């Protein structure tokens, strides 16, 4: 699961150009945590053989993180670990982490993990003279040796300050302890409670300076969210942002979720959306099986109805559908869908459809995700519907919601379950913009819109995107009838897109206009014909006139020619009679 690769890439990018040979830089050895996302942020894990401080307020998940580090190390990386608990006893700890699916008893039996509960009770302890913590060292040392541990967790060592007198001795001993841990070469996590002005109450960050991770659990708008930040990582680059994280049935997962491999198989099978006309818009066959579909739109645009159609169609094919509703109760959904002619009651009776309705505020995101995971694993549906998604967004936890969605979508995809989500878009705001965040995980995105004109609201549907299919670019008018959803072509003309009665009016107008235009065309044709005949008559007349003139002209030309010939003959005769020897031309030249 861990990919230490992004790290070297990063390094080589920042490496100075002066180096002639791109030698691989010596990397700080790292111990992968196996925690989703954390290894990405830290570029491969925690510093190997060194202590790491994990601090944060109460209930922020320190113990969970430490425990997961240990359990994953033992199970996935073959690095046994010692968990030294100062706050919870072994029994409680085993119970608490069992909820994450960690079987500590079994791991302990297989010599993968040792849990040692350190009990310190101030009332029972009296101090007389100097002491040291050699007992703890011996204890830890023997635990490490007993299983050949490579990892150690001390949770929360600061408890010693309240349990033992003489903080000066303690401080000196803790410093020795962390040095000792380094010498033993174990990768350690030391947890610490957040202090007033320092990272930890007792200033442990002073002693543990290789890597410091701060966890935070904050509440905004009554909704809590967990965040993680790598404050310091000596000798390594690391992500410095605050990353939200979740604790669920699989343990901790930190965003970015790039740790989730995109390896799911994409089926080519298509499933009907339940609306024939919509299938036609989606390349003629509907959604891809195993894809994620988002239907977003403003209030009352028919998102749930489209979802119900899809559920109905899936049940008709004999598939199982899991419907999570966050706004309506099951009976409300049944009633409302009956009103548009979809009887989903029958599918519930047949056991093909399950509706789970609860308010998003009923639990934290992690719990919701865990519940969904569980239900999906149990019911094994082919289709999962979430209606609507945005009710999870309370305050500014959008990133967490996105993380939840991404993980849910990935989970669904690996199981080739088609996921359909509805999302209420705020009217007035550009829909495309508000949902940029979740667009990346959505394969097919349908947009429902209200068009408000001519004193009425009409619904429109368009396909914003649909990966891997030739989808229609047309807007369709979307109608909710008593026999379900119907899609109609909209009027597209010079006045724009018209829907509803405006569309009907416009269509009638158009027809009338067409009629008038046809008549006009006919009129023009007749007019043209008339002009043509007139012109042709004129042309004939002109031709006749010309013919007359031609005859007259050729007659005159004939007469002229005859006269000319006569005149010339007369001149020759005269010359002969006068005995002219020279030619008239030479006479002319001689005179010059």
């Amino acid at each position, binding site marked *: 699961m861990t990919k230490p690769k992004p790290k070297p890439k990063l390094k080589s990018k920042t490496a100075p150009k002066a180096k002639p040979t791109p030698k691989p830089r010596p990397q700080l050895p790292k111990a992968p945590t196996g925690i989703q996302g954390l290894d990405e942020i830290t570029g491969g894990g925690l510093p190997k053989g060194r202590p790491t401080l994990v601090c944060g307020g109460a209930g922020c998940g320190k113990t969970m993180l430490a425990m997961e580090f240990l359990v994953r190390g033992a199970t996935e990386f073959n690095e046994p670990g010692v968990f030294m608990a100062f706050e919870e006893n072994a029994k409680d700890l085993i119970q608490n982490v069992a909820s994450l699916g960690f079987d500590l008893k079994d791991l302990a039996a297989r010599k993968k993990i040792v849990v040692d509960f350190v009990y310190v009770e101030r009332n029972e302890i009296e101090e007389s003279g100097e002491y040291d913590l050699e007992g703890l060292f*011996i*204890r830890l040392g023997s635990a490490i040796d007993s299983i050949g541990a490579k990892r150690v967790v001390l949770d929360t060592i600061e408890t010693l300050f309240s349990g*033992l007198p003489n903080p000066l001795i303690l401080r000196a001993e803790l410093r020795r302890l962390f040095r000792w841990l380094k010498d033993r070469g174990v990768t350690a996590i030391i947890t610490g409670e957040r202090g007033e002005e320092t990272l930890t109450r007792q200033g442990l960050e002073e002693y543990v300076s290789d890597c410091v991770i701060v966890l935070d659990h904050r509440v905004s708008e009554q909704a809590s969210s967990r965040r993680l930040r790598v404050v310091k990582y000596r000798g390594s680059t690391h992500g410095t942002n605050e990353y939200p994280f979740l604790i669920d049935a699989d343990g901790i997962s930190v965003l970015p979720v790039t740790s989730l491999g995109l390896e799911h198989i994409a089926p080519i099978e298509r499933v009907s959306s339940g609306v024939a006309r919509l299938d036609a818009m989606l390349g003629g066959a509907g959604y891809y099986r195993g894809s994620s579909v988002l239907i977003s739109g403003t209030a009352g645009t028919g998102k749930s109805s489209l979802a119900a159609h899809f559920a109905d169609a899936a049940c008709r094919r004999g598939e199982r559908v899991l419907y999570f509703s966050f706004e309506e109760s099951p009976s409300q959904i049944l009633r409302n869908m009956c009103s548009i002619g979809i009887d989903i009651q029958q599918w519930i009776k047949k056991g093909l459809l399950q509706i789970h309705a609860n308010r998003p505020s009923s639990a934290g995101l992690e719990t919701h995700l865990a519940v969904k995971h569980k239900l999906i694993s149990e019911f094994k549906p082919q289709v999962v519907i979430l209606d609507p998604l945005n009710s999870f967004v309370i305050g500014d936890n959008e990133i967490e919601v996105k993380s939840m969605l991404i993980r849910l979508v990935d989970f669904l995809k690996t199981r080739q379950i088609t996921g359909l989500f509805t999302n209420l878009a705020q009217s007035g705001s550009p829909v495309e913009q508000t949902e940029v965040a979740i667009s990346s995980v959505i394969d097919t995105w349908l947009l429902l819109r209200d068009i408000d004109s001519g004193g009425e609201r009409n619904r429109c549907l368009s396909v914003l995107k649909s990966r891997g299919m030739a989808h229609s670019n047309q807007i369709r008018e979307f109608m909710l009838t008593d026999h379900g959803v119907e899609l109609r072509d909209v009027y597209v003309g010079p006045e724009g897109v018209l829907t509803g009665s405006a569309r009907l009016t416009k269509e009638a107008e158009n027809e009338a206009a067409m009629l008038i235009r046809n008549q006009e065309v006919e009129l023009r044709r007749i007019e043209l014909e008339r002009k043509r005949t007139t012109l042709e008559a004129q042309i004939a007349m002109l031709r006749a006139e010309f013919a007359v003139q031609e005859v007259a002209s050729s007659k005159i030309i004939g007469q002229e020619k005859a006269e000319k010939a006569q005149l010339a003959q007369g001149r020759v005769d005269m010359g002969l009679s006068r005995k002219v020897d020279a030619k008239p031309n030479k006479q002319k030249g001689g005179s010059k």
Partner: protein
Amino acid sequence: MKTNSDRPAQSEVKKALGLGASNRYILNLYVAGQSPKSVNAIANIKKICEENLQGRYELDVIDLYQQPQLAQGEQIIAVPTLIRKLPPPLRRIIGDMSNTERVLVGLDIRKNA
């Protein structure tokens, strides 16, 4: 190392019932090897016991280097640690036992007893 005087069965029973300070004391001293603190602690506690609890105490000195598993079993963190097993309640005294007053308070022994 075991230092004890007579141990009749009867007092054992009484002690188990926790009857008064005059009863038997069972003390375990956990040390780490021959460190100066350990050596001091052994010497100090022996002296205190002899002076105050003569004849009614049992003192076991345990070297954690020899028996490291006992550190976990007995919840030892600090060294040296003296544990008063009996009479109840369980008491712990940490340090090299150089402060006699504190040791006596910790063991709940009245000086004039």
